């Protein structure tokens, strides 16, 4: 049975999360098709067709699919679901929004946030904020899955030559309407795809002080993240949040500044390759996962580090 991957995109560009999901799909051992559902998204379908390992791209293009409304996107997937043994979404805000709708309508369980494929019906997934790893087996005919993108390498974006087939778009449900979007303007790399992440916690003390991280992030070409405590305190926007209920990151280098290291935060970053922690409290749990710990006043250490790099 073929595997269907639902592409993440903004109608102009295929998002990197799709590439990681294709790798997870390839591990199932069947042909991989990619669905691009959008509006004016022909270019995205073209990009998806070039991804190594993809054998066919399905393009559903219509105004009602422009904004990824869960109701319409789920109908689109359901209209095509027959014949697929696995339906994979990246575990992004959009994938998490839509996948359970598809699973419920197919009357199957969804397997959330898989980090490994043990067999076509057996997967590993973190539970309890990553403090335990469950190996689960699905007894359903169709497996609807969201993929933790940091757990799978990105498929090569070039070299494939899949065909693009246009499919009939699903009708507008009329139940919901898109009103607007406020996208934070940001020249930095995307948090979940960045090679380096510099994150701040409550130790920064204020939104003003949080800006101290920017020169360091600039120097390192890093994305900026934040702990839930920092977000709750209003120092940083919510979409910077790294942790169990925020984003899951696994960069080459993660620099935790003024972060104590609550379980919820560690859940989001402990798979990073190298972790640096700067905190004045030597007992902070973040030092338990850090490769390099520096017990110091961050207001001195961060500018000093920025200058030294």
């Amino acid at each position, binding site marked *: 049975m073929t595997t269907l991957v639902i592409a993440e995109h903004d109608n102009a560009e295929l998002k990197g999360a799709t590439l990681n999901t294709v790798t997870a799909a390839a591990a199932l051992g069947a042909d991989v098709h990619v669905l691009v559902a959008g509006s004016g998204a022909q270019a995205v379908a073209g990009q998806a067709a070039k991804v190594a390992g993809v054998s066919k791209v399905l393009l559903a293009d219509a105004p009602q699919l422009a904004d990824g409304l869960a109701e319409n996107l789920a109908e689109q997937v359901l209209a095509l679901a027959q014949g697929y043994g696995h339906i994979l979404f990246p575990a992004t805000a959009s994938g998490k929004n*839509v*996948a*359970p709708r598809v699973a419920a309508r197919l009357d199957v369980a*969804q397997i959330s946030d898989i980090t490994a494929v043990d067999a076509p019906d057996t997967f590993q997934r973190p539970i309890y904020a990553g403090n335990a*790893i469950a*190996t689960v087996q699905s*007894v359903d005919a169709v497996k609807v899955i969201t993929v933790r993108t940091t757990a799978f390498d990105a498929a090569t974006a070039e070299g494939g030559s899949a065909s693009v087939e246009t499919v009939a778009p699903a009708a507008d449900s009329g139940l919901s309407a*898109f009103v607007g979007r*406020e996208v934070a303007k940001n020249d930095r790399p995307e948090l979940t795809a960045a090679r380096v992440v510099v994150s701040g916690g409550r130790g920064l003390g204020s939104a003003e002080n949080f800006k101290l991280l920017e020169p360091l992030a600039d120097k390192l070409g890093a994305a900026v993240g934040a702990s839930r405590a920092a977000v709750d305190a209003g120092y940083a926007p919510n979409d910077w949040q790294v942790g169990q209920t925020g984003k899951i990151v696994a960069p080459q280098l993660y620099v935790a500044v003024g972060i104590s290291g609550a379980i919820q935060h560690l859940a989001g970053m402990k798979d990073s390759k190298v972790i640096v922690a700067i905190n004045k409290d030597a007992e902070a749990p973040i030092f338990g996962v850090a490769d390099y710990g520096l017990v110091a006043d961050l207001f001195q250490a961060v500018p000093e580090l920025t200058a030294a790099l």
Partner: protein
Amino acid sequence: MKVLVPVKRVVDYNVKVRVKSDQSGVDVANVKMSMNPFDEIAIEEATRLKEQGAAAEVVAVSCGVAQCQETLRTAMAIGADRAVLVQTDADLQPLAVAKLLKALVDKEQPQLVILGKQAIDDDANQTGQMLAALLGWPQATFASKLVLSDGKATVTREVDGGLETVALKLPAVVTTDLRLNEPRYVTLPNIMKAKKKPLDTLTPDELGVDVAPRLKTLKVSEPPARSAGIQVPDVAALVDKLKNEAKVV
């Protein structure tokens, strides 16, 4: 208008769970249990809607063991008017819970269901979306703002890279994100009052729902441990390690 708020009893967010040595699951015996934090936000939001006059009644629901009554009493202490427990000792997975909730929605006919976006035990993030799909209702997940007017819910959602606003026709399902509100502290007088509020108990059989699990847990294991790192004395030593040992800068 009636608002239904499902709440889940979970291991308290401050507890670091331990995997059982036979890998059959995590050890939850004698561990502090609390209401799932996102569900607390859901109950708070429903209570505020009632206080603003936008909702007439708030009904809290929980599915699970008899001790979920405590969670429902907390929900009523925050502000729910009454509660329903669907009592079972079975292992309930999100699809089964969504089916139980659908049966209750058919019975109670709320215009709005507010749920937490994710439970912090199984981290599934599915139940609200599944319920909306089974009901054929629109949904707004990860809500940071909710406004009701003219038979519509206008919801601001936390999405990757920023915020998005959608308008839903009621009835609808909304799931909460962290910044929707800050739940109030439960006061002693309200805890006392909550003890007198009605709490009905049903079973999955009475609701005609098959709750058999669809996912078999083969084992639960410890995550790979990180090897212990080192303390560096100063910034210069840190930079040296990053450049010459880790080679990441």
